């Protein structure tokens, strides 16, 4: 039986946007704006709605995101009625540098000559001045919207300002920095763009996740006062409470049984995207292989199963329901209808509790409607100690 798995883009209803989001949307198109908020507070939705307005008005705009996956995800969230002009921020920056200075942006050499060479921001600062009397490559007719703006270094903002860009719309969350030493704090962005502290808007209410998921995410909240903690009601048991399943030991389902169940779940919701977030490549490949082999009876046939490894050039399709298996490092900013955190006991930064908590915080917030945690029989005391004990927040299915 064939089934339409299209994940249709839908605009929010008027009731779905809260007053803070209304305000963030209503900021003037021109000027420098910073919107801060935790996962699920609707930062990206607001940025994309702004981009949509610019597209409708036929302005010269570009949405910049951290990585390819987020770019693909945003394209789906933007819908197909208008074309989203977007790129990864680093590629766009390198292209711009080359366009302006007719040479590649300075990079830091690596021991392995074929390894990726990051941008040398110190050298950029020294070489990217626009000569006096020359026309600025960017100007007040250009609009840049930056998603996950905390992940770009402060020099990135300084350089764009020097190049003449004046219209910035940045959405950011300091608690979701990928590499804190290379990222921008809220203050860095405010300083670079000349934004008064009081003019930075804060989104506080969780918008994306269901309450039970938001409660679990909040359990892992790293507590940085620069980004406000999302507001939530008290926890209550719910049908969609996040679940913890154990598999692969006596009396528990096997990996193959778990995989069959994931396929059943996907079959019940053919146009939902299930994201399996793995701690590393070996777990990612294990699930990809098991899902490939599994063949349970399904109403709608086997769903599309996609995977993404770092450096992979083939883009993923966020416009179709099915299953997507990615690593935890790639999941930030993405949104899945259902997120399954595979083999949670295998996450590595066990010595840095703050980093581990931050990772769980980011991973949990990927699920829009449901989050399921899977653990193998290997009990990891560090991970165990991080999990909430309250069943209303995380229901145990492995008892």
């Amino acid at each position, binding site marked *: 039986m064939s089934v*339409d798995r299209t994940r249709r883009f*839908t*605009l*929010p*209803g*008027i*009731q*779905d*946007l*809260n*007053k803070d989001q*209304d*305000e963030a*949307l*209503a*900021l003037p198109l021109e000027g420098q704006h910073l919107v801060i908020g935790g996962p699920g507070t609707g930062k990206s939705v607001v940025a994309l*709605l702004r981009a*949509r*307005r610019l597209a*409708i008005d036929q302005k010269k705009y570009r949405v910049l995101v951290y990585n390819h996956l987020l770019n693909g995800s945003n394209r789906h969230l933007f819908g197909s009625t208008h074309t989203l002009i977007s790129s990864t921020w680093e590629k766009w920056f390198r292209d711009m540098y080359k366009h302006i200075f007719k040479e590649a942006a300075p990079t830091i050499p690596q021991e392995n000559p074929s390894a990726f060479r990051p941008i040398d921001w110190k050298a950029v600062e020294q070489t990217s001045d626009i000569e006096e009397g020359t026309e600025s490559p960017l100007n007040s007719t250009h609009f840049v919207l930056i998603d996950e703006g905390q992940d770009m270094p402060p020099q990135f903002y300084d350089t764009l300002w020097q190049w003449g860009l004046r219209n910035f719309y940045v959405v950011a969350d300091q608690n979701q920095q990928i590499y804190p030493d290379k990222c921008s704090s809220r203050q860095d962005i405010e300083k670079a763009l000349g934004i008064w502290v009081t003019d930075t808007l804060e989104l506080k209410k969780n918008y994306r996740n*269901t*309450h039970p998921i938001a409660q679990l995410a909040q359990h892992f909240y790293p507590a940085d006062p620069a980004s406000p903690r999302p507001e939530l*009601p008290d926890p*209550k048991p*719910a*049908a*969609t409470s996040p*679940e913890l*399943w154990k598999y692969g030991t006596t009396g528990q389902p096997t990996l193959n049984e*778990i995989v069959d*169940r*994931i396929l*059943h*779940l996907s*079959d*019940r*919701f053919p146009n939902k995207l299930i994201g399996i977030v793995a701690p590393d490549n070996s777990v990612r490949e294990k699930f990809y292989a098991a899902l490939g082999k599994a063949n349970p*009876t*399904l*109403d709608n046939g086997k769903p599309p199963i996609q995977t993404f490894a770092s450096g992979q050039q083939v883009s993923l399709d966020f416009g179709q329901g099915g299953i997507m298996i990615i690593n935890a490092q790639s999941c930030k900013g993405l949104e899945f209808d*259902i997120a399954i955190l595979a083999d949670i006991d295998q996450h590595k930064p066990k010595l840095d509790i703050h980093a581990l908590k931050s990772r769980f915080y980011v991973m949990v917030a990927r699920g829009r*409607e*449901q989050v*399921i945690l899977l653990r193998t029989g290997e009990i990891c005391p560090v991970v165990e100690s991080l999990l909430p004990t309250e069943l209303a927040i995380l229901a145990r*299915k492995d008892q």
Partner: protein
Amino acid sequence: MSTTNSKKSNAPRTPQQWYLVTNHLNLLYMLAAGLVMEPSGFRGKHYVDSLGAIPGWVPFFRDAVPAKTLDEAVSERRHLRLCIVSFDLSEVSGYVQVLSREGKIRDAKFPNIRLGKEGIGILCRAPLPLTLVSRICFQSDEDRQMFETAAKDVSNVDLKPYRLEIEESLFRNMTDSVWPPVQTGKPLRRSTRQKEPDSQSGDLFDETEGMPQGLAPQVEQRLISSQALGGLLSMLYHCANRSELGVKVFQLISGSAHNTTNAFIEDPILAELPNWLSGGGVSEHSSTPAKLFWGAIDALVSAQEGNHSSQPVDAVLEYLDTQITQLDDEKYKSRLQRLVSDMRGFLSLGGGTITELFERNKGSLSRPLLLFCLREHCKDLLEFSHPLLSDAEYLLAGILFGVRDGWLRLPCGMRDQALSAYVMYRMAGVAHQKQENVISLPETPSPQPLRALFPCGAESWHKSQINAAIEIAKDSKWSDCIETVVASTDSSPLENPRHENGKFVFPGEASLTIKIRQDAFLKRLGQWPSIDGKLESKIRNDLNSARKDEIGQA
């Protein structure tokens, strides 16, 4: 019931413009909700404006508006823009309060009121349908653009039916009247079966009064909330395209049926719909599944009216959990336990496929409730089909989904103009009925589902219906609904054709007739998305004209 239609009223028919002062975001919310509402209707998203002055009452100004209402409407956030909405209340009648320049209030019966030189406007009972809006005025083009841009950001506001105008003078025509009104004595109450006010009284504003008299205590009725009714009506309207049963059920509840009894409804749960809608709950002799289903709907409505933070599925599950403990019949008890367990696991790693769930849980209680968990919004249900699902089960699921989403959450694609007008009228009506308000609103006719124009069964279609069906099938590229008959002109058997460049060539003279395959056509008609709006409108017009012609000829 005290809500009447104004066909029978003696209200004068001269158009009267009354002005409501608000901001652009409150107005967008009301356009989505279909009603001018009191602040509590905004589910926490009401920006301070004149609607909050006396909750439950909508202030309308006759000519000049109090300056303070303009300041107030944009006071909460800097991005708010002023707007003044002009209403035509000429077909509205009922009890109102007259507002004086000094901020005092007195009872009056609308429309036979005299404002006098001290009167600046009236307070009308909320909610009111947006069909009464005649135009929306802005102070500047920039404000209007901001309003239009904000409307484009959301899925449930359609500005097409409304006239947007820039009328700066309206915003300059202010009075220094007292605002908000001075509430002396006891506050205005919600329920208003009042004594007849003396609208001809010479003393327009009694210093000591200002409050309505003889307020009756609010009567508890088990009537559906207005938003839930709007969602329900809309879902039954759209679901009606799937089956004859659907058409008859919609006609029954919209008062457009020839047959006004529910005798044609075989399903015992669905048969309770008219009772339940009229506020009487389910009948005493109804079956346990019927009591459970409508009890679940009641629980859902209560949770929504109480603005509970729990998800709708959880509100229903909580109700069903309670019922399990109270059921004596072991057969029902174990079935309900199985259903609840499957409902709870809908987003979990268990449960199997939908076919397995439907096979495990049979009947018109279980399957709609399972679907309630398995699909999120009304549109998702309209796109869903399953061979195990009966027409009655589908309609019951439609009721659950409609109540959950309410009218507010329905996207523009589900709100055609005739349906919107009818739903707004019914939503306002049920709200006033619940509050026992004495108000008469202009009646809006019920729309007919598209399928009602193509009746199924032994009765053959009229030529205009066949032509309309062919036009729909051609335009929508439903090739499976059309067949072409080739016959010889003299009725003799046709010789075998030869095949030439993809064509059949018949020797001799032949005629060609395009026929519609009714079953396939009706099946297509029930699918979502429905046919193109412009085509639907044309077909309805064509069939209406043809019908008039037939009546004329007769």
